[in-house]
C-alpha cells in the first residue's frame, strides 16, 4: 500500500502534465495546419526566418 500511496499521485501528476502540455500546444496554434507542418521540414533554411507569430484575423496576438 505504501507503494501505491506514492505511485498513484505520480501517475495522476504525469497525466495532468500531459493534459497541460496538450492544452498549451492547442493554444499555441500547433494544430492549425497539420499538412503544412509535414511539408515544412523539407524547406531548406538558408538564413531566411519563417515568421513565428502571426496575428489572427481578429488582430490579437496568439499565445501568451
Amino acid at each position: 500500500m505504501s507503494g501505491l500511496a506514492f505511485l498513484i499521485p505520480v501517475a495522476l501528476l504525469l497525466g495532468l502534465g500531459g493534459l497541460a502540455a496538450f492544452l498549451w500546444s492547442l493554444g499555441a496554434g500547433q494544430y492549425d495546419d497539420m499538412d503544412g507542418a509535414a511539408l515544412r521540414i523539407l524547406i531548406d533554411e538558408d538564413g531566411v526566418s519563417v515568421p513565428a507569430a502571426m496575428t489572427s484575423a481578429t488582430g490579437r496576438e496568439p499565445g501568451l
Partner: protein
Amino acid sequence: MTVAIAHSEFALPGVRCAGCIAKIERGLAPMAGVRAARVNMTTRRVAIDHAPDLTPDQLRAALAGIGFEAQPIAAAAAAAATEDAGESRALIRAMAVAGFAAMNIMLLSVSVWSGASGATRDLFHWLSALIAMPTVAYAGRPFFASAWAAVRRGRTNMDVPISIGVILATALSLFETVTGGPHAYFDGAVSLLFFLLVGRVLDSVMRDRARAGVAALLRETAPGGAVELADGQTAWRRADEITPDMTLIVAAGERLAADGIVLRGDSRLDMSLITGESRPEPVAPASRVVAGTLNIDAPLAIRVTAAGEATTIAGIARLMDAAGQGRSRYVRIADRAARLYAPAVHLLALLSFAGWMIVGAGWHDALLVAVAVLIITCPCALGLAVPAAQIVAAGALMKRGVLIKDGSALERLAEADCVRLDKTGTLTLGRPTPVGALPLKGEERPVALALARASTHPVARALAIELQRAGVIAATLDDVRETPGLGVEGRVVGGGVGGLIARLGRTEWVGLGVAAHDGLETGFRLGEDAPKRLCFADRLRDDAAATVAGMKALGMDVGILSGDRGEAVRPVAAALGLTAQVRMRPEDKLAAIDRLKLAGHHVLMIGDGLNDGPALAAGHVSLAPASASDVGQTAADAVFMGDSLAPTLIAVRAARATRRIVGQNFVLAIGYNALAVPLAILGHVTPLVAAIAMSSSSLIVVANALRLRSCAR
C-alpha cells in the same frame, strides 16, 4: 508600442508542396509593408500581416508575380472562421479533459474489475470520484447547456438523455462510493462524455460558416467612388455616403459604387457580376448603369439615381437573404434520429426501474439497473456515427479541392436529384484564355508580359497570367502609358530589343484590322515587326462534358440557367448536350429553382456570380467555384478549386457514399443497442461490461467511417 496592422487572407488553390510554401513566404517577406506571411497548407490559404496602406489588390499582384493565383477571402468570412475556431477549441479542451480523466479512471477501474475489494476498492472509487466530479462539471457543459435549453422549451433532443444519463450515473456512483458499494460507473460516465465530445469536435470542425455578412460583402465589391463636388473638384466618398443626383466619376478599371445614368463618356462595362453576361456591354451618355459593374475602357461621369440600400445589387442581396431562410429549416439526420431515440431511451429506463420495483427489488437496485440502461443505450456510437463519416468524407474531398462548409451540406448533397448550372464562370472558366498557342516570339514575350501587367483590362490580365504560367520573366520598360480605350505602350530598356516602342491593345491601334468579334482580341507590336493578333475566349472548364455525363449517369436531371445571351449559351449547351434557359435575371433564376422545388425536386445549384446568389441560397444545396465572387462563395455550401468541373461530380459521389456509410453506422449502433439493452434490463451489466460495450461499439463505427477515405477518387 503597437503599429496598426491589417490582416488579409487569400485562397491559394495552386499551393501543392513545400517548395510552394517557401516560394510564397520568402517572396512576400521582403516586400515593403509586409510584416509576416504564413501559408496554411490545410486550408490552402495564406495569411498576411501588412501595413494598412497595402491594398488587397497589391498583395494579389505580388502573389501573381511569385506565380500563384490568389483569391481574396472576405474579412467577414475570415472573422467568422476565427469565431468558429474558438468554439472548436473550447470543445477540444473539454475533449482533452474528458480523455485524460477517462484514461486515469479506467486505470483505477481495472484493479477494481480484477478483484480489488474492501479498503482498496473504496480508495480507488474515491480517487475515481475525485477525478470524475470536476471532469463531468467541466466537460459536460456543452451537453448540459443544450439539454437545458431544449427542456426549457418543452422539447427534447439527443443531449437530454445524455445529460440525464451522465448526471444520474455520477450521482449514483458517488452514493455507492460513500456507502462502500461494489459498483461505481464513474469510468462509464466519463468515457461516454469523451466519445461524445469526439463526435462534437468532429462536427464543429465542419461547422456552418456564418451566412450573415452578405451586406458587408457587397460593400467590398465597391467600397466607394470619386464624387464631383460643386466647385469641379472630386472627392472620395464611401458607398453609403453617396446620395442620388450626385455625379460619380468612375475611372477605367473601377467598379461603380451606385446605380445611375451616364452623363459623359463612352466605355464598356463588365456586367458579369450582375448578369453573368460575358461580353462587355457598351455604354454611352443616357445609358442606365448599375452598381457593382466594372468600367473597362474609359472614364465615365454618372448621375446617381440610386445608392446604398436602393441599388439593384442590394436588392439582389435582400433576395438572397430571404431565399436562404428556407435552408436553415433543414433538419439534420442525427437530430431526426434523436427525435425518436430520446423518448424511447427514457421510456426504457423508466420501465426497467418500475419493473424491478414491482418484482420487489429495492429502490437502490432498481435505480442501478435504470442507470445501467441509460449508460448502455447512451448514443455514443450514434453520436459518432454521423460526424465521423462526414469528417472523413470532407477530408477526402478537401484533398481533391472541394471545401465543404458544414455537415448538413453533405447530407443535402446526397439528396440532390437535379442540377442547375450557371454558364459564365461555372461551366466556363469565367476569364479569357488564349485560343490556341500565343503567336509571340521569344524576345516578344517578356515585353508583352511587362505591358500586360501595367493594365487592369481583363484581356491584359489574362495574357499576364498565361505568360507567367509559362515562366516568362517580365522585361524592364520605360515611359509606360495606358491610353484608356486603346491600350498600353512603353519603351523597352536593355536586352536585344532595347529602345524599341512596344504596344499592346486595340487591334487597329497596333496596326491590324478591326477586331472580328466580341472584343476579346488584342494586338501586340514590338518596334516595326509585324503586329500579332492575340485571340482570347472564355472556354469551357476541363472535364465539363465528362462531368455533365457523369451527373446524368447518376440519374440527375441537368440543365443550364444563364443570364447570358442565347447565342453565347448555345455553343456551350450544344457541346454538353443540355437544355438551357437564357437571359435570366437573378429573380428569374430564383423562380426557376422554386418551381423545381414545388415539383418535389432537390436542386443542386452550381454558380459563381452575384446573379446566382439568390439561386445558390434557394437551392437545396449549392456549389461555387473558388473563383466566384465573395457573394457566391458565401451563399454556397461548398467551394471547389481549380479549373476543372470534375470536383462537383466527385462531391456528389462522395456525398452519396457518405450517406451509405452513415446508414450502416446507424444500423451498427442500433444493432448494438438491441443486443445490449436486454442485458442491462436483466441487471447483468456491471461497469466492466458497460465499458467494453461502449468502447467497442464506438470503435466499430469509427472504423466503418474510415472506409470513406477513398470516397473522393
